[in-house]
């Protein structure tokens, strides 16, 4: 994961023309052009992958629940880019982006979405239940908030083994009102466990806006009573995510305990594929897309760094091709053997 090691670069002047939002110049300048392109590619891969998943769902190749990550790409790509190989990751069911950012193979992920034997869970888990021990990705959990105590358990095991790694526990704004989240805040703070709670606040828990569901001023402050520091972060800006992520990871890694990052982000698609989207207006979605899109923003920066249109086209077709390969691989794969019905219940 740690492909984006910090390298000192000469100060490049970065001016934001379209959105006018200030960017942390320091981080932009610390990264090489290649590293910036790598971040761009990872976010684009997630977006194109999710668009393809949406299509396949429409065609009936993907069934059940399918929660797309489109719009939120900067959060997981930014966080994973500042983490170490060996840090563990756990999240809820909007998880395809996390898997790709953890380095899991898009082919295996897509094959799982389509319920094929070559999927990460042999077709038995589906969209919400995928794991890769090899990549330290621990799911993929379908019960809102249940991944949080498991996340502190992973942090407990890092601490027990003193292996120096941190668990990044992702949860949504909908999960923050589950009681077990606070049980986890308490124990992780009590025992100074190396865990970061990354709250992806995309403004809606299913169809209920945060303002209608959560009391208090800020989700970043939800750990205050336990002495857990929290930061509100612009989750649409990968550099803000990276900067906050580094700070939180350093804090947790040196043994100071848990850290909360509230990532202000936005999902462009519905909660799941069957979301009628009556709770927000089209113009609200469009405004975010046009002004804050994480991929477009990074593209502008890359353009300022003299990345040519041809280069972008090349990247686009490379990503599209990867996604097509994944989709073809999935659709060409067999359904699981019927014998699989009764395997993997016990070891």
């Amino acid at each position, binding site marked *: 994961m740690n492909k984006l090691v910090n390298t000192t670069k000469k100060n490049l002047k970065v001016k934001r023309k379209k959105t006018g939002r200030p960017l942390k110049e320091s981080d932009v300048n610390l990264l090489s052009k290649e590293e910036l392109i790598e971040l761009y590619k990872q976010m684009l891969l997630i977006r194109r992958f999710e668009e393809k998943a949406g299509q396949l769902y429409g065609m009936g190749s993907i069934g059940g629940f399918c929660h797309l990550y489109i719009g939120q790409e900067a959060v997981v790509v930014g966080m994973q880019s500042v983490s170490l190989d060996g840090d*563990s990751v*756990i999240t809820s069911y909007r998880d395809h982006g996390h898997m790709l950012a953890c380095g899991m193979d898009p082919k295996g992920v897509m094959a799982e979405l389509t319920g094929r034997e070559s*999927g*990460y*869970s*042999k*077709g*038995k*888990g589906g969209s919400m*239940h*995928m*794991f*890769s*021990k090899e990549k330290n990705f*621990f*799911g*993929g*959990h*379908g*019960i809102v908030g*249940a991944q*949080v*105590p*498991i*996340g*502190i*358990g*992973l*942090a*407990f*095991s*890092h601490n*027990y*083994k003193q292996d120096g790694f941190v*668990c990044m526990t992702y949860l949504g704004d909908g999960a923050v009102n589950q*009681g*077990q989240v606070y*049980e*986890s805040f*308490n*124990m992780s703070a*009590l025992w100074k466990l190396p865990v970061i709670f990354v709250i992806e606040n995309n403004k809606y828990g299913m169809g209920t806006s945060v303002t209608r569901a959560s009391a208090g001023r800020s989700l970043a402050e939800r750990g205050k009573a336990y002495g857990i520091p929290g930061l509100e972060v612009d989750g649409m800006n990968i550099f803000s995510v990276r900067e906050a992520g580094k700070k939180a990871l350093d804090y947790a890694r040196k043994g100071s305990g848990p850290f909360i990052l509230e990532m202000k982000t936005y999902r462009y698609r519905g909660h799941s594929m069957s979301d009628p989207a009556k709770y927000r207006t089209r113009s609200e979605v469009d405004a975010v897309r046009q002004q804050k899109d994480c991929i477009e923003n990074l593209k502008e920066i890359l353009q300022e760094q003299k990345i040519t249109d041809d280069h972008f086209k090349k990247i686009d077709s490379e990503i599209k091709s990867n996604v097509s390969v994944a989709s073809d691989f999935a659709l060409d794969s067999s359904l699981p053997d019927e014998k699989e019905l009764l*395997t*993997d*219940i*016990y*070891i």
Partner: protein
Amino acid sequence: MSIIKMPALSPTMTVGTISKWLVSEGDEVVSGDILAEIETDKATMELEAIDDGEVSKILVQAGEQNISVGTPIIVIGDENNTTKISHVVKQVQSGNEKKEISNSDKITISVREALRDAMAEEMRLDEDIFIMGEEVAEYQGAYKVTQGLLEEFGEKRVIDTPITEQGFAGLGVGAAFGGLKPIIEFMTFNFSMQAIDQIINSAAKTLYMSGGQMGCPIVFRGPNGAASRVAAQHSQCFASWYAHCPGLKVVSPWSASDAKGLLKASIRDPNPVIFLENELLYGEKFEIDGENEIVPIGVGNIVSKGNDVTVVAFSIMVGKALNATKKLAENGISVEIIDLRTIKPLDIELIINSVKKTNRLVICEEGFPFSGIGSEIIAQVQEYAFDWLDAPIKRVTGQDVPLPYAENLEKLALPQEEDIVNAVLNILNEVN
């Protein structure tokens, strides 16, 4: 003169030990003074004086084990009333002598010690095993099952949690995913309902949902079922709840050697195991087999051989079935008792083979009848041994009511020895 007797300091305490007298004969005490420290089945408690006066006689010395509740232990005031005191002293001495004789001719161990030894032995072998739960460390266990573990293994591996069952059950699951082997103690299984989502959705299902990648080697253990007069919310058998779910193994031993051997097997098992103990059995002593003996999960045990009726039971009901069998033997009825030991996977073969011999089956469980373990056994027996049955199968179960508090109602709600006797007599009459 006031004679103070060994008090009952917990709902299940039948005997206690005076660990220390804090007064001596001849001392003047006033009401509220602490007279002694008494070790119960759960904790060490202080005994206070209720009356003022001089300590005229200490009847039971510190360190004497297993003094029955109700035994006079100290006399305060009226030192001239010597006849009465000497009478009391005589009573106490004869009582104690009797106990020592009965204890000295066997090498026995309590279920509580067996469970503790199982954990300690396994923890010595494998650094990745830790135990976590409410009061497991400094308090030495709410029921003293983890006594001494903190001292031996330290606070890294013996961890007191806040009262936060869902949280620490989930933490245990995460730690198991992370490569450790947690033992999660529920103070009682009643509180596991707070955590049942983590047990079922996270621990039991993940191996399957991950296509075999992510096992969850974890033991959830603690006392299950009714204790004594603690009423509905603290008295429930969860065997059928957990046995219902694929991915879990469910173990519920009766004897000390099975408790030890099965707990060791459960800790070594790579799957999530629900280990159902029984508070009333903790203090019960059994002869124990050799050290380090593992009892495999999924294997039942014939605890008493017989020919006329098969009685299947588990946990505390095994003892009740044995007592019932003695009464039935007086009437010339020969009962075969099967101790399931493991609920899931169920040793149905053992039951079927016994039924093929006796042709009659009675199933005992303390839990509710509806969708109980008995229901499952009946379904399987009629499927595999229908032609061997000479009578409809009978169940002896708890009543289908929340457990009442009142002594008489509680007794009515729980299956008793007489109920087993009656069920066996009834099933024999069916064919006569």
